């Protein structure tokens, strides 16, 4: 039994078919990359799985239970966490409070939630900025906060939407190391949308490629980079030659 199954999923935005009959499986403990050019339907696919969009047809099955069309807070309670490509950066709450809200998802006790939130902040190296507001932080830390609060809900599957966008090469490297640690130490299955090949290729065990709403390929990273269609649609000749 696959951990997450997407079966023949269709999402049609009144003429624009953002996801056209997409199917794939993810096994527990994998790291899966989802790549494709802008407008390929990657975020829409995420939103359909998590519940921000209701798919027009098709099924999403998580741990053997159908979750198609469940609201985002319900899929989260089933064990799916997600981060956003663009995080709303507000002055409303501190870093600690943000993570605390995530931890409250699993407990009603404020002290337990605080312990959990502190542990996660420590794990991600955010201890020093815990009292800062989001708008006072550099983008790399903001991304980590997004990660931290999703982790605080104790997901089994974590879906990351462009977690490395806007980061410089050094920060990207740190993020990759962090993702590896999350995967190994917390035993969380990762499913990531990513444009930065330096992130996807080294850590993904499998890569799914979307283009124009259709799945054009999936497989091992080293197979994907040699796939003619993928090179044409997305990677470009240059990247293929570099390999």
């Amino acid at each position: 039994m696959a951990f997450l199954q997407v079966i023949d999923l269709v999402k049609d935005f009144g003429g624009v078919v953002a996801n056209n009959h997409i199917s794939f499986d993810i096994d527990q403990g994998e790291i899966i990359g989802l790549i494709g050019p802008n407008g390929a339907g990657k975020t829409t696919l995420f939103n359909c799985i998590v519940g921000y969009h209701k798919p027009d047809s098709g099924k999403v099955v998580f741990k053997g239970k159908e979750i198609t069309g469940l609201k985002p807070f319900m899929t989260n309670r089933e064990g799916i966490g997600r981060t956003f490509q663009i995080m709303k950066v507000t002055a409303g709450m501190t870093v600690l409070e943000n993570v605390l809200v995530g931890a409250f998802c699993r407990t009603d006790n404020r002290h337990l939630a605080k312990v959990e939130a502190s542990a996660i902040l420590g794990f991600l190296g955010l201890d020093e900025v815990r009292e800062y507001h989001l708008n006072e932080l550099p983008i790399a830390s903001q991304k980590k906060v997004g990660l931290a609060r999703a982790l605080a809900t104790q997901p089994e599957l974590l879906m990351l939407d462009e977690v490395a966008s806007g980061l410089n090469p050094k920060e990207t490297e740190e993020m990759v190391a962090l993702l590896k640690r999350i995967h190994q130490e917390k035993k969380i299955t990762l499913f990531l949308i990513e444009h930065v090949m330096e992130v996807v290729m080294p850590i993904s065990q499998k890569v799914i490629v979307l283009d124009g709403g259709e799945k054009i390929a999936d497989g091992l990273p080293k197979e994907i980079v040699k796939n003619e269609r993928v090179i044409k649609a997305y990677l470009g000749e240059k990247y293929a030659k570099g390999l």
Partner: protein
Amino acid sequence: METLRDAFDFSDFSRAERIGLGLFTLFLFIFPWLGFGSFVKTVMIYFLLFSLFGMGWNTIGGYGGQVELGKAQYVGIGAYTVALMMVWWKIPFWVSMPIGVLIALGYSFMIGYPLFRLKGHYFAIATICTSLVLQDIFINWKLVGAAKGIELPIHDHPDFLYMQFKSDTYYFYFIMALFYAGLFYMNWFRKSKLGYQLRIIKDDEEAAESLGIDARWCKIKAYSIASAFVAVGGGFLAVFNLYIDPYSVMDLDLSIKIALMAMLGGAASMWGPIIGAAFLIPLDRFLGSWLGGHKGLIGVDFMIYAAMIMIVSAYQPRGIWGIIEQFRRRGA
């Protein structure tokens, strides 16, 4: 136990805030003995009452960030329950007030459920509408006195069962007790799970949902808490004025005042609603009685009132408390 400890624990406030609260409490305790006349005492009573209203509004309007402009209907529900039960069945305040709160809770869940399908401006408009509809029903409902309202039968002074007194001092301490009950509740609320969840819903509802938060249900809960607060105040209003009609306890004007005071003082802060009420109630009352009495100056009080609100909201959308915090940050 822990809930109680959280409610009475003000240790995360700054020293200045705690001293301020202490002095303020001391002032309230001795206020009736300072020799002020009944006009000033009434102003103080209204100040505490509107602080209570504002604190209630602050749960959904401040922490939850929903522009809620229909709180007057719950003032009405609280006030009418107390008044009618006393007139019809001679039921004491201490029984009818909790019943009023329960009715307000039930009613708020009922209309909160469809109401929170709406967002932003549409939600604000819908809250105004529900309040106006209820007011219209009461204006035309003969059984509850229609537009004439109801008068409460007067009891001998002092009556602690029906909460009727001749002297404002009694009413003052009574509303002060309710005010502090509200204050301690809010001190617990802002640290509670629901408090945090509302704040992230206000910041980013999408993200909140991704963290396992049922945003709509949270808003309904907060809306009901706010309604319960306001219904308590409504009950007080009935026994304080001994007369209620749909215009005095269910008016749109009242709804807007409640929201405005909390916003002016500083929404989503502990002291905002109190500061807002401390500004606007005396302004409203004193300006009204000083300027309103002069020929040619009628309406000037409203102009000053409006100008103040515009200045504060233009300068700092987070209200007077926002301005204070801004200065504190700069100083630090």
